[in-house]
């Protein structure tokens, strides 16, 4: 029983991450009609926002290490700690949450620049060419990050206060053995908030109304004399911000490296398509569904019945859903079907 609750939590947590990444992707699909293979790179850039903030905050004074005799080695002490003592240490400790505030404007800027500079010119081009250009862009972004930060993952710990595990078993009266990392609970909450915010934004603002209308029927909205172009730019910016935030918050769970975007790219496409093209709700439900199924498939009990099931579960579910529901969970007819 405890094992099941824990796997459910794992699944929700994974699902939150999948949903956040897929949300931006499907938004761009649905409104702009662009297959964005650089979306994973945006997720990665978000994570590197956290890395950058952390390294900015820990710019250090180098002191020669006398214990090493046969060459010159240096000890490092961050200036923040030298100047402000414990306050400095605390600020460094909170680098990841602090990065959120920086990541929002930066990712918005990157998103807008990408849309204005490149994506805009590909609205009417065939999907194949969108794939090639965004894939090229993803590689370029990746290589630039690699040349600054190297190929190795960079540790970006969460604040000390949420570093350990919460005994939610005790909190909920389920017994002592249900413990779960605080940061993962924070992540789950955070993804819920972001998903809710995006939905609320689309539901309750006039801007959101136009975007939703655009997802239904792009041409008509254009005919209404609404400046769709500028709204598209903003939509792309929002997608970039959501992906970026997913990246920032994921950094303590998965130490960021330059290639992490590619690792998530295929998965996020599967999530979006299983959810149904152009459906935000579909993407979110598919994200959680796949996350939970993946967690349960990894249980030893399940693996002993079907060996290797945890390796293929996501794809297997994708195949089953696409064969039983032609347009995924909530897809609409005619979107990206040709």
């Amino acid at each position, binding site marked *: 029983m405890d094992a099941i609750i824990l796997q459910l939590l794992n699944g929700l947590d994974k699902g939150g991450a999948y949903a956040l990444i897929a949300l931006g992707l499907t938004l761009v699909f649905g409104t702009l009609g662009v297959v964005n293979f650089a979306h994973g790179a945006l997720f990665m850039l978000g994570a590197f926002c956290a890395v950058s903030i952390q390294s900015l905050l820990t710019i250090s004074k180098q002191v020669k290490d006398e214990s090493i005799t046969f060459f010159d080695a240096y000890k490092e002490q961050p200036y923040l700690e030298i100047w402000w003592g414990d306050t400095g240490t605390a600020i460094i400790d909170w680098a990841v949450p602090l990065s959120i505030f920086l990541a929002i404007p930066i990712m918005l800027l990157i998103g807008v620049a990408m849309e204005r500079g490149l994506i805009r010119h590909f609205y009417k081009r065939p999907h194949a060419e969108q794939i*090639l250009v965004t894939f090229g862009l993803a*590689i370029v972004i990746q290589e630039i990050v690699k040349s600054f930060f190297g190929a190795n993952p960079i540790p970006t710990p969460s604040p000390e206060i949420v570093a350990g595990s919460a005994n939610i078993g005790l909190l909920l009266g389920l017994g002592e053995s249900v413990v779960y990392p605080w940061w993962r609970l924070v992540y789950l909450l955070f993804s819920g908030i972001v998903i809710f915010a995006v939905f609320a934004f689309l539901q309750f603002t006039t801007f959101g109304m136009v975007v939703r209308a655009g997802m239904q029927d792009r041409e008509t909205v254009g005919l209404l004399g609404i400046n769709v172009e500028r709204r598209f730019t903003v939509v792309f910016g929002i997608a970039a911000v959501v992906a970026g935030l997913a990246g920032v918050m994921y950094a303590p769970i998965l130490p960021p490296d330059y290639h992490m975007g590619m690792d998530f790219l295929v998965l996020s496409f599967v999530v979006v398509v299983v959810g149904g093209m152009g459906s935000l709700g579909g993407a979110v439900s598919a994200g959680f569904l796949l996350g939970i199924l993946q967690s349960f498939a990894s249980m030893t009990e399940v693996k002993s019945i079907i060996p290797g099931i945890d390796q293929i579960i996501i794809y*297997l579910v994708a195949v089953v859903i696409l064969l039983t529901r032609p347009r995924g969970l909530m897809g609409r007819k005619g979107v990206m079907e040709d």
Partner: protein
Amino acid sequence: MSIPAIRNDWAVMAIFTVAVLTAPLWLAPIGANYPDLLQKFAIFGIFAIGFNILFGLTGYLSFGHAVFLGVGSYTAVWSFKLLTMNVLPAVVFGTLMGGVFAVLIGYVSLRRSGIYFSILTLAFAQMSYNLAYSVLTPITNGETGLQITMNDARILDGPVGDGLPSTTLFGLEMSGYSGFYFCATMLIIAFFISLRIFRSPFGLKLKAIKSNQTRMKYTGFNTRPYLLVAFVISGMFAGLAGSLMAITDPLAGAERMQWTASGEVVLMTILGGTGTLIGPLLGVGIIKYFENIFSALNEAGLHEFFAFMPDWLENIVVAVSSEFVGEGWHLTLGVLFMLVVIFLPGGVMEGIRRTTAVVRNLSKGPEKKAAESVGKE
């Protein structure tokens, strides 16, 4: 339009054959004339030509085509292990097995179109890759890859002598240049088949499906079998390419089936020019050249290359260009993808078409142009 076209096709074949067979000569100046790279050009050429029959003609974007490549390779190595080191059974079985898998995957995936089709093919390929890498290790030898060993059965060959046997075509070893010429022959045959398909009524119907599938149904065609046949043909091409990989280098690894490998052939085809006969081959040439030659350049090599410059300039040029070679070859490839698709929608073939148009215009000469403009008035 009929008779000149036929003569034209034979001319295309003749030029193509000569170009492929003399590749070791004309690729020498750019350092791409060593056997392994030549073999890779030919093998991936077959792969891309086959992919183009599906994607270029019908518009169905398979994102899991590498699975057939992998299956072809595994089958070929098993043929070496169980039957004989002769390459002919390997080629036949590899191609057929590619076809069998294509029938299975195609039959299911073609129930959907557009991106749903792409994701279905991707899902099948990723499942195959993940299983081959781990659970199916008894068949695939997992991460290490399936290799031939001393104690394989090889029932048609009898006991081996000292050391591992090589792949042969009735005694002719299939490594080095002989391996290339074998692959080249296959490439020429594959190109010929592709050319015939492009020019045939069948090909026209496939193009019509790409252009407007709904209309095809009301025109009296059952489009599903057409798509399945195209899918299977391109799967068999991939199987053939896979078996040739195993023939020139008898090791088959699971990563051949990973999505990145499927993505590579997509990129090759789009980069060269989707739906054109030669385009995919150009895409193959560019990507494989970057992967093998650009990745191998290092600063020492660059200094040699730019030695004619004054020292200070040489240093700057080397510093800048070294970001793009060696470990930076991915960056160059990414930039290239973007440039090509931004400036040449339609790929490299589009660039060639534009260039020839410009040249033709120039060669027309000013008088003719003047005459034309007068005529317009």
